[in-house]
């Protein structure tokens, strides 16, 4: 019975090792490889009454012995995981010596007419193991600090004591009944399990902290984005923001809205996740402060470029800033490596690109940006977007693309601003479904502005 349960534990541990691929620990493998064969050897030993001379060893007995002998090797490797290699690799040497002894004993057994009279190589361990520990200690070797080491070592020593006791008993009585060893093993399993469980609990606590921090970061991130867009007479504005992970590098804002002018910025920090989100926060602060001083689009981007270049080396961003004047029905814009905003001309039913000539932000110190002008009329629609929109990939690896976006703007021109934004986000999300699941490779952000007067 004991053998069967130990065997099962070993099987479970080995399986667990191979299933827990990324975070797997060697300890689990060694434990599994030790417990499995060891349990098997116990089963065989209890199935065949080991009385010297009563019958010749059957194949089963030899098999059991073989497996049992080799099981000690992973047990030693398990010990080494915690203990380290010892003084002058002494624990390594011990394992090598034992392996040689096993092979030697097996060789002798094959040719000996009374194989049971050959001492078990386990005796070697019983003698050498404490010796190695004592020599290491005297030579000043200290095992590396590890969590829950005392529990694990306690288990290992209990097992070793029971193992030694049984080996001495076998040696004296000549039989091979396992007396205290299975009990020792049980203690080891419990200690090992408790050690692993505590480690898992600690990892889980760490993971929960991380998850909480990410949730907090996500909240902050959403706070830097406008929750409601200001309603401006003569304009209807809708925005959509769909981050790829908990936090994102895309950022948009409406700034300095007064009776005559407002500014619209959309920025995309290269990369994703926490680093990009941190830079996005930096972008927000820089842009808000320059917009407060009523700087023009080029000045805003130049300041942003300086901030990124100085404060966030090797972090780059694309951005477009559009300043819209509703007294003169005209806009000024500057682009820094950003996909050109699209302007749908309602009366002519034509799509124009607001091309800019600006370099990616954060690359070159003191980079200057040019400003371009455009006029708008009632019925025009402006779409400002991040490249996550047009580069959304389908299952077959095709990009959503400029052409598809253009076609939607044309065919769906009758939709209200909000409905158009909802439709567009749905289309992109459907486009990048893979195996029936949404699969987004980049943050998707866009702002739609309808000119109504």
């Amino acid at each position: 019975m004991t053998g069967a349960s130990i065997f099962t534990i070993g099987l479970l541990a080995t399986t667990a090792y191979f299933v827990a691929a990324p975070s797997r620990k060697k300890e689990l493998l060694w434990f599994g490889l030790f417990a499995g064969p060891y349990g098997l050897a116990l089963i065989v030993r209890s199935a065949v009454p080991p009385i010297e001379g009563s019958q010749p060893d059957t194949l089963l007995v030899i098999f059991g012995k073989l497996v049992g002998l080799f099981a000690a090797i992973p047990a030693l490797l398990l010990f080494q995981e915690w203990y380290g290699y010892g003084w002058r690799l002494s624990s390594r040497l011990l394992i090598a010596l034992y392996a040689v002894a096993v092979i030697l004993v097996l060789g002798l057994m094959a040719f000996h007419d009374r194989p049971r009279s050959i001492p078990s190589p386990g005796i070697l361990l019983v003698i050498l193991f404490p010796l190695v520990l004592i020599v290491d200690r005297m030579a000043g070797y200290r095992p590396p600090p590890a969590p829950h080491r005392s529990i694990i070592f306690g288990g290992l020593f209990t097992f070793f004591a029971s193992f030694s006791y049984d080996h001495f008993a076998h040696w004296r009585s000549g039989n091979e009944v396992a007396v205290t060893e299975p009990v020792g093993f049980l203690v080891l399993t419990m200690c090992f399990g408790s050690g692993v469980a505590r480690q898992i609990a600690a990892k889980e606590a760490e993971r929960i902290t991380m998850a909480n921090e990410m949730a907090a970061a996500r909240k902050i991130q959403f706070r830097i984005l406008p929750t409601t867009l200001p309603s401006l007479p003569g304009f209807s504005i809708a925005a959509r923001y769909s981050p790829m992970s908990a936090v994102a590098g895309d950022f948009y804002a409406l700034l300095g809205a007064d009776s005559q002018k407002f500014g619209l910025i959309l920025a995309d920090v290269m990369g994703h996740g926490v680093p990009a989100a941190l830079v996005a926060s930096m972008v927000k602060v820089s842009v808000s402060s320059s917009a407060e001083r009523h700087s023009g689009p080029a000045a805003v981007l130049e300041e942003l470029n300086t901030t990124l270049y100085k404060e966030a080396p090797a972090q780059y961003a694309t951005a477009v800033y559009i300043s819209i004047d509703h007294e003169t029905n005209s806009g000024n814009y500057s682009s820094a490596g950003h996909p050109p905003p699209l302007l749908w001309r309602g009366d002519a039913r034509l799509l124009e690109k607001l091309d800019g000539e600006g370099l990616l932000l954060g690359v070159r110190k003191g980079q200057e940006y040019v400003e371009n002008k455009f006029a708008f009329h009632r019925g025009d629609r402006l779409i400002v977007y991040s490249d996550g929109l047009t580069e959304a990939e389908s299952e077959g690896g095709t990009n959503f693309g400029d052409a598809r976006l253009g076609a939607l703007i044309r065919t769906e021109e009758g939709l209200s601003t909000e409905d158009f934004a909802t439709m567009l986000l749905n289309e992109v999300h459907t486009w990048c479904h893979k195996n029936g699941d949404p699969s987004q490779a980049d943050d998707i952000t866009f702002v739609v502005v309808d000119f109504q007067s």
Partner: protein
Amino acid sequence: MSMTVQLREINGVTILDVAGRITLGEGSVILREKVREQLNLGKHRIIVNLAGVSYIDSSGLGELTSAFTTAKNRGVTLKLLNLTKRVHDLMQITKLYTVFDVYDDEGSAIESFSQ
């Protein structure tokens, strides 16, 4: 397909033949490591050959830019060779072609170092 980088050296110029996808994560990390390795080895003439690059995303482009600026800060010139249409388009949108030295054939790229 993941990304691979092969190294060659011609007339004292180190050429990194990049193939596959340079995207967020593995691809861009490999590129960064390889360029850094060459810089640490004291190589000061580096060409990144992008002929085999099927796809690059903005993170990949950021990585390329960062490699360029790191090299420049150490007084090393990093030039680009054989942009595929995709890389070329991205260079156009981001105007990075004004930053990088870009070549269409290997001979003139190598020669450009001796001028």
